[in-house]
Structure formats: structure tokens, C-alpha cells
């Protein structure tokens, strides 16, 4: 059976050797190495998560043609690259996914010297727990998980996870994210524990709360809670802030709040996967993204919070003061990043999630 094990390891090592050699070549004669890469770049991203003209502008500026491929969530990204990089140069993994991928040698270290526009990044983002010193990833967009709700159907501001998990006041009008990370995380937070708890007693309490709370929940939504909310299927939904901000723009009756118990703050990063065929172009592209004007173009399309300070400075007041996009500092202080907790912990949480679904 050893053949099974050796094959991927061997190929990964030779991958590294190959890219190592490429880097050595760059140090000695960058111009020669640049000439070696085709004017192509393969970009793997979420849908509607880049500026309308960003890719065309990049082609105009550098001659490099970007091929865009889409994934639905971080798990799809991870699963697709797990067996080896099928040819992507730039990817957009969330903070805990990037941590997992770094541990699995799936991400290439960045060469900061090739990304001078890093100076535009808000210094608050330069040393996160999931990637100390930003060796592997740079911040692309960030946001929070909270409660989107319909003002006319809800009394006051539902600023607690209670209304989604424990209180039957809005039973049958609630959607939760169908995602074990956030649903278990919110239950933990409501019980006063960490979003990233690996304590089995705390996790079991969260499981019991979720099972008991099933009569409140209408649907574990697959990241379409904002649609259910907009269509009137539910009146409260656990969702990402940007998704709610998008439907809020079309319906004044909708609002977003971060529960007072605290929640999740996430960061989507931009990184280069191991075995990327065009690492030079990838660095050029990442540098391009962090240009002020380019970042502004992206933000104007997708309405998420940008860590690009130069871009934020160019945006209008309405964006900079939007509380759904930039939450108040005290609310944000109670939010945690999702950490990668290790495969054992993933297994435990999956068991809990299966138990919730089975009940």
C-alpha cells in the first residue's frame, strides 16, 4: 500500500523543488524569468466578488489575461485543491481556510518585495493570528456574521442570538446558516463560550441548544438567508453582513445587527496556491488589487468592507459610515475570528452537526 502514500508526497515535493528553482531563477535574472511566463492568470474566486472592470483593467495595464473560475464556499475551494492544484494562480480563501491550507502545504509564501502596494493596507490587518506576519495571504475583504431582520415584523432590535436559538417568540420565522462553523459558533457565543471552543462539554451544550432550538428554525439556509428574508419566507436570518447589505439596498424594511453576545468576524484573503503555474503574474495581480483606485472599483461593485485604506479613503461618506458594513467598535470587539482547530476538532463538530440534522 505504500505506493498510495508515496505518490502524492513525491509529486508535491517535486512541485516545491520546481517552484523553488523558479524563484532561484528570479533572484538571479528577474527579466528572464518574467519572459518565461505566459501572459495568463487563472483566478479562483466567489461569484460577484471582484470589481466590474478590474480584470479588464488589469489586462490593459499588464497585458495579462485573467481567466475567472468560481467556487461557492471555502469547502469547495479546499476540496478542489486538496488533491493538487488544477492550475489556479490566485485564490480567495477565508481566514480559517487559509490556515488549514497553509498547514497542508497548499499555499505558496508571498514575496512581499513584489507587492509594493502592501503599503495601502490598513496596518490593523498586517499581523493576524491565522497568518502571523502575512507570510502567505493578504486581506481582501472582511465582515461579520450577524442577524438580518425585517423591521416591521420584529419588535425593537433583535440584538441577541436568543431570538434565533432559544426564544420561541419568532418560531418558524427564523433561518440559520446551514454551516456548522457558524451555527455551532453562534450557539457557543450565546452560551458565553468562544466561537472556537474545542471543549467537549461546551460543544455538547451547544449541540443540546441547537437541537432544542430546532422548533424555532424554519431552514438551515445555504448562504441564501438574505433571499429568504427578502422574499418574506423568514423575518430573521443569520447571515454575512454583505449579503444583508445587498438586500437592504433594495428594501428599506430590512436591517442588520451584530448580537450583543458577540459573533464572528471573518476575513477573506488573497493567496497563491502551491503549484500555481504563473506565480509572477499572480504577484503582479495581487499588487494591482491593492492599488487605491482599483480597490475602490472593487468596493463599489461588491459593497464589502475593504482593508485597503487607500481605497476606503477614496470612497464616499455613505459607504464609510454604513454601520452594516463597518460595525461599531464595541460590537466588533466582542467578535472572534474562526480559527482552524485541527482535523480532530473538525470531526467532533461534524458529529455534532450530524446529530442536529438527525434529531
Amino acid at each position, binding site marked *: 500500500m505504500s505506493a498510495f502514500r508515496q505518490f502524492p508526497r513525491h509529486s508535491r515535493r517535486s512541485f516545491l523543488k520546481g517552484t523553488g528553482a523558479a524563484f532561484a531563477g528570479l533572484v538571479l535574472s528577474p527579466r528572464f524569468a518574467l519572459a518565461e511566463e505566459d501572459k495568463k492568470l487563472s483566478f479562483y474566486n466567489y461569484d460577484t466578488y471582484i470589481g466590474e472592470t478590474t480584470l479588464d483593467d488589469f489586462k490593459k495595464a499588464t497585458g495579462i489575461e485573467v481567466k475567472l473560475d468560481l467556487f461557492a464556499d471555502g469547502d469547495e475551494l479546499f476540496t478542489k485543491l486538496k488533491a493538487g492544484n488544477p492550475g489556479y494562480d490566485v485564490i480567495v480563501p477565508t481566514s480559517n481556510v487559509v490556515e488549514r491550507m497553509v498547514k497542508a502545504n497548499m499555499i505558496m509564501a508571498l514575496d512581499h518585495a513584489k507587492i509594493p502596494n502592501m503599503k495601502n493596507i490598513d496596518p490593523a490587518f498586517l499581523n493576524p493570528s491565522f497568518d502571523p506576519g502575512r507570510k502567505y495571504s493578504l486581506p481582501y475583504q472582511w465582515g461579520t456574521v450577524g442577524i438580518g431582520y425585517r423591521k416591521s415584523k420584529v419588535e425593537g432590535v433583535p440584538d441577541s442570538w436568543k431570538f434565533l436559538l432559544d426564544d420561541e417568540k419568532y418560531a418558524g420565522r427564523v433561518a440559520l446558516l446551514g454551516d456548522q462553523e457558524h451555527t455551532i459558533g453562534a450557539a457557543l457565543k450565546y452560551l458565553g463560550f468562544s466561537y472556537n471552543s474545542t471543549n467537549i462539554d461546551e460543544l455538547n451544550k451547544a449541540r443540546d441548544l441547537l437541537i432544542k432550538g430546532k422548533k424555532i428554525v424554519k431552514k438551515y439556509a445555504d448562504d441564501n438567508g438574505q433571499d429568504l428574508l427578502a422574499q418574506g419566507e423568514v423575518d430573521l436570518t443569520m447571515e454575512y453582513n454583505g449579503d444583508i447589505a445587498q438586500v437592504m439596498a433594495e428594501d428599506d424594511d430590512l436591517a442588520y445587527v451584530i448580537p450583543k453576545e458577540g459573533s464572528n468576524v471573518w476575513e477573506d484573503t488573497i493567496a497563491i496556491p502551491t503549484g500555481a503555474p504563473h506565480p509572477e503574474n499572480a504577484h503582479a495581480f495581487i499588487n494591482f488589487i491593492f492599488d487605491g483606485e482599483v480597490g475602490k472599483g472593487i468596493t463599489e461593485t461588491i459593497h464589502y468592507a475593504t482593508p485597503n485604506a487607500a481605497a476606503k479613503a477614496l470612497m464616499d461618506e455613505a459607504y464609510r459610515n454604513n454601520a452594516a458594513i463597518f460595525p461599531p467598535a464595541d460590537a466588533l470587539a466582542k467578535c472572534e475570528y474562526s480559527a482552524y482547530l485541527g482535523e480532530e476538532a473538525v470531526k467532533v463538530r461534524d458529529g455534532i452537526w450530524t446529530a442536529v440534522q*438527525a434529531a
Partner: protein
Amino acid sequence: MEDWKTNRSVFWTLATPGTFWLVLFFLVPLAFLFVLSFSDKAIIDGQMSINDYDYFTGISNYLRSLNSDIISIFMRTIWWSFLATLACLLIAYPIAFGICFAPEKWRPLLLMLIVLPFWINLLIRTYALIAVLRTQGVINSALGFAGLGPFEILGTSFAVIFGLVYVYMPFMVLPLYATIERLDKSFLEASLDLGGTQFQTFRNITLPLTMPGIVTGVVLVFIPCLGTFLTSELLGGTSSWMIGNVIQNQFGPANDWPFGSALSLLLMYATFGVLALRSLLQRNSKGVDV
């Protein structure tokens, strides 16, 4: 017919593409699943590895399948598949009969109407069903005009079973049509002429003679129902996971391929059981073979 032994080269030439296809795209992946199901994630430096496996470590993944949550999801899957198959049979039988006794020129058109939904992707049809079933959807709007409702249909087990019946109905109608069409109508006339009532004729003549079609239809509907994950995910509510959803979760978010492999193989063994039952029933049947 020529014996393959006398023309070996011709035999091998013709057999190669099919064999190649079967081995490369079916048996090899299946063997990989089989090996993985007896394996575990490797422990490297005291930490469970993300991508590497220790092979042939034992049957721990099968033992994990005996977990009460997995068993209750398995039972739910079998129960819903049974209900969906039964509903398909009860609805499809009269439809198949109707098509068989329709004027000859209408039959191709009617059959085409049965197959027509297959021209549209399953995912899109399921999303269309969401629009039909949701609280402010087509059904509830119609009921609203009559002063009824709205009823919560979407997000219930009824919605999932409804979806399964809708999706797999053609697999029941077509084999039933095939047997009923070849049914010798003179048997029915003889039974009625000899004083049998309509019900006796159906029970003693029609039903036994069309049994092979029923068995084939049941197998063709029941087996894909067992493996469903899309319908239950999109139409179901908070207690709608079927075993397909658990398996999908193992290969996706949970990143636990060994456990997912064990569950897939268990599902395959259940399928073999159904097929074995089919051949047993078929052997004892006196009906028109399909």
C-alpha cells in the same frame, strides 16, 4: 452465433473499449473508496493530517456508522424512499394504463410528455419546485384566492417526498407502460366473460401479469431515492438530511473521506440487497418480462 473462442481477436477488439471504460472510471475509483473505508487519517507529529492516510487500519469507520444519529438518518432515508416509491407506483399505474389504452396516434406524444422533464436540469427543476411550494409561492397564492392557507409546505418532509415523487415518476411510468402494453388483452376479456368482476380481474390477472414492470419500476425509483441529497437539501427543513447529505458532508466540509467512503459502500450494499430482492421476485413471477 459465432463462438468467441473461434474469433478471439475480434472479441478482444470489441471488448476492449467497454472494459477499459469500466475498469478506469468505475472499478478503480470504487477500489479506492473500498481501501479508504478501511483507512484512517494519518497522525503526523501527534496531529491528525489533513491530506495523508494510514491505510488498512481497521473497521473503525464502519463502527462509527453504527452511531445512533447515522442509524436514524439511514432509517429516515429508507422510510422516505419507501413512501416516495409507493406514491410513484399508485400514481404511475393509472397513468401507464391510460397511455396504453389511449388512441395509437396519441401514445408517442403522451410518452414524450412523461420524459419531457428530463430535458431540464434537475437543479433547475428543483428550484422551480421551491417557487411552487414556498409560503408565497404558486400553490399558496392559488389557495389564497380560495380563502385558504397559507400552508407551510416548503421545508417539511412532505416537500422532500413530493420532490422525490416528481423527479422519479418517469422511471415508474416507463417500465409499467412497457409491460401493460404487451399484456394480452384477451386474458382480461376472458376473465370478464367468465364472470369475474373488474376487481377480481385486476387482482388475479392484471396485477400478476404486470408484476415484472412493477418490480422494475420500484427498483428504478427506490434506488436513486436512497442516494438523494439535492432534493432533501433544497426542499427540506431542519430535519431533512438523508444519508446522501451525510456522505456529501464527509467529502466536503468535514473532509473525512474514509468515513464518507464507508457510508457510500454501506449504501451500495443496501442497493445490492434491493437488486437481489428484485431478481428473487422476478424469478417467482409469471408475468410479462421487461
